[in-house]
């Protein structure tokens, strides 16, 4: 019991200094955890995607549509179970600041393909029956205080004019990673209005979603779909839903890299602070270490004392930091609203936080421990005088 007791006594000798160091580690670990969670949230869409869904878009870019007739041809491709489609609407709710995703879909085929959107049966029937109806995710409904039956006006940026939708249902996500901040409404409603106002732009689709029986044939089926439309006016590019989502993430990769780099910088900063604390502590106790050695304790014992103290302080700060990350993440998610549809601290993040705290403790102890184990008894004792 002698060793742990000595470590504990040493750690709390300078209460203020230990407290400050722990506070610094807590701040760093919380910041590290939040930044990792931001990166995770970015990838949430890709991680939530299903491996049995393929997304077909115009090969030129997402801005270019495809004709509705493609749905029939995709359905005929071997291995395809069902086809649905969606158009990005890009409407503005009241002001530009209220950004959220809106899709015009074909509910009869789209909703069965996305079982992760949980919708009550009566709400589903009401949505299917009302051509000007819409459904939204729980998070979005909470943010703007919408209730079933409310009218939601959107100002179109791609499709000009003001569009009104009646909220017919609010869906929940089956998993924590499901996006609950999207809005869906009838593609046929959009298309009929567009046909009246801008006949040239009617009967056009942004993306097709194809459900397949066997995920292992995804590459082959994608190639078969694209081959169907080769050399046509609108050539297509088909990829798995995950690859499609990752394509979006890759576009903002520079920002993600910065966030990831910054999350490690905060650990390096706290390493400098902690290394400083341990260096000072060890320097002040040089005489004690010399005394221990004079009593016959080996250099390794002295080094072990310093390492154990450093690890104990870092671990304390780390555990406290991990515990505080969860409420901090909840507060952050509340502040940014629907910017990140999914914002949950993952188990992997917590493990990384723990690892980072231990690394800080270990690195901070290296130099002082090495110096203390090498200190000559005579020099150490002389320092007392």
């Amino acid at each position: 019991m002698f060793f742990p007791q000595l470590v504990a006594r040493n750690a709390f000798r300078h209460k203020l200094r230990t407290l400050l160091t722990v506070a610094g580690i807590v701040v760093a670990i919380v910041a590290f955890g939040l930044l990792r969670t931001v990166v995770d949230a970015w990838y949430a869409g890709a991680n939530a995607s299903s491996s049995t869904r393929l997304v077909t878009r115009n090969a030129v870019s997402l801005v270019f549509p495809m004709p509705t007739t493609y749905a029939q041809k995709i359905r005929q491709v071997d291995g395809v179970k069902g086809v649905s489609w969606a158009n990005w609407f890009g409407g503005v709710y009241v002001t530009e600041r209220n950004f959220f995703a809106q899709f015009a879909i074909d509910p009869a085929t789209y909703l069965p393909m996305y079982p992760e959107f949980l919708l009550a049966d009566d709400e589903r029937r009401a949505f299917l029956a009302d051509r000007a109806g819409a459904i939204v995710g729980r998070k979005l409904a909470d943010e703007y205080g919408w209730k079933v039956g409310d009218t939601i006006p959107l100002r179109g940026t791609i499709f000009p004019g003001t569009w009104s939708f009646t909220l017919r249902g609010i869906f929940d996500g089956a998993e924590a990673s499901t996006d609950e901040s999207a809005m869906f409404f009838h593609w046929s409603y959009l298309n009929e209005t567009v046909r009246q106002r801008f006949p040239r732009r009617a009967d056009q689709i942004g993306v097709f979603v194809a459900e397949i029986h066997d995920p292992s044939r995804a590459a082959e089926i994608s190639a078969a779909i694209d081959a169907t439309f080769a050399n046509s006016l609108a050539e297509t590019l088909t990829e798995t839903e995950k690859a499609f989502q990752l394509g979006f993430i890759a576009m903002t990769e520079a920002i993600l890299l910065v966030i990831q780099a910054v999350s490690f910088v905060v650990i390096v900063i706290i390493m400098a602070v902690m290394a400083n604390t341990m260096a000072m502590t060890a320097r002040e106790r040089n005489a004690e270490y010399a005394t221990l050695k004079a009593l016959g304790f080996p250099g390794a014992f002295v080094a072990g004392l310093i390492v154990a103290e450093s690890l104990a302080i870092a671990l304390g700060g780390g555990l406290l930091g991990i515990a505080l990350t969860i409420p901090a993440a909840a507060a952050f998610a509340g502040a940014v609203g629907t910017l990140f549809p999914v914002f949950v601290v993952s188990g992997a993040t917590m493990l990384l936080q723990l690892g980072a705290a231990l690394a800080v403790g270990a690195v901070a102890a290296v130099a002082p421990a090495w110096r203390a184990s090498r200190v000559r008894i005579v020099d150490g004792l002389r320092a007392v005088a």
Partner: protein
Amino acid sequence: MAIPLSYVVRNLAARRVTTLLTAGGMALVVYVFATVLMLAAGLEATLVATGHPDNVVVIRRSSQTEVQSGVERGQAGVVESLRDIAVGPDGSRLVSKEPVVLINLPKRGTGKPSNVTIRGVTPAGIELRPQVRLAEGRMFRPGTAEVVAGRAAAEGFRGAGVGETLRFASRDWTVVGIVDAGRTGFDSEIWGDAEQMLQAFRRGAYSSMIFRLADPARFEAVKREIEADPRLTLEAKRETRFYADQSETLARFIGILGTSISAIFSIGAIIGAMITMYASVASRTAEIGTLRALGFPRRAILVAFLIEALALGLAGGALGLAAASFMQAFTISTTNFQTFAELAFSFTLTPQIAAASLAFALAMGFAGGFLPAVRAARLSIVDALRAA
């Protein structure tokens, strides 16, 4: 009577490792702080420079970006006949009707696709943007499948260099020149002949119109005229305003991210400074007692330790700023959330940012040094001397 400055400096020098570690921690914080400010300044500089104050952009009402906009040929004719459009040196009117589309091209380094803006321009359109100069090769010839690429686009995307060909809209386009658009958004675009682009992309409508005002002061009147005309469903914006609006979300995102990260990091650095300064006070208790016994007042002790902390902050600030200034050599290229198009911009260090970074470092030093300095000043002479 003040304590000489050399005493303060020597104290920092005497404990080199501690000083270096503490200043290093602060330097990292200042580095992050300055880098983010430089990024925001670079983005702003890019988009402000993209617009010309006398140019007016006309897009479909509430479409926000050129890609989402559409200007029918009939409407374009109405705008084209406005009286307030300036006349160029050769007698032609300075107005350009332009199709703008996004296409997916693989990036050079990673091969991952990203969106690049393709703009169809007319001779007047090139004249309207004097900041765009030919850097390499030649301009595209009207009526051909030739294009020129902005410097950032040529460096960033596969097939966009001089002599290479790009395939889009089921045609091959030869890149015949590189244009240097300075640090503007046009540097990330690819330009070709407007009519060729309309045909290739099978578009019946232009995306936007741009014209030079004959009298810049008449902007409000022209805007009213366009927006009140029942034949037009368009809106007019000054070009500078138009580009500033487009980067609003990205600039705000960078700003919020940067300030919150700097705030969190500075807490860590302040704690580091506090630990150092408390230790500095503790190890010099006897010295402080001696100084007081020699007749230095409490205020002098307080000031000496505060100066020590401020010097620590300044050293960290200078170190961090020096590291951040090297970032000016890099260009960052990312997708603008609002236009979904790739935009290249660089880190820009302005005198204001340098001043703000140093002030931030000094503030961290002050915050970390104040409490320890107060403790040092409040030591009683007898107790302090006894500690020796």
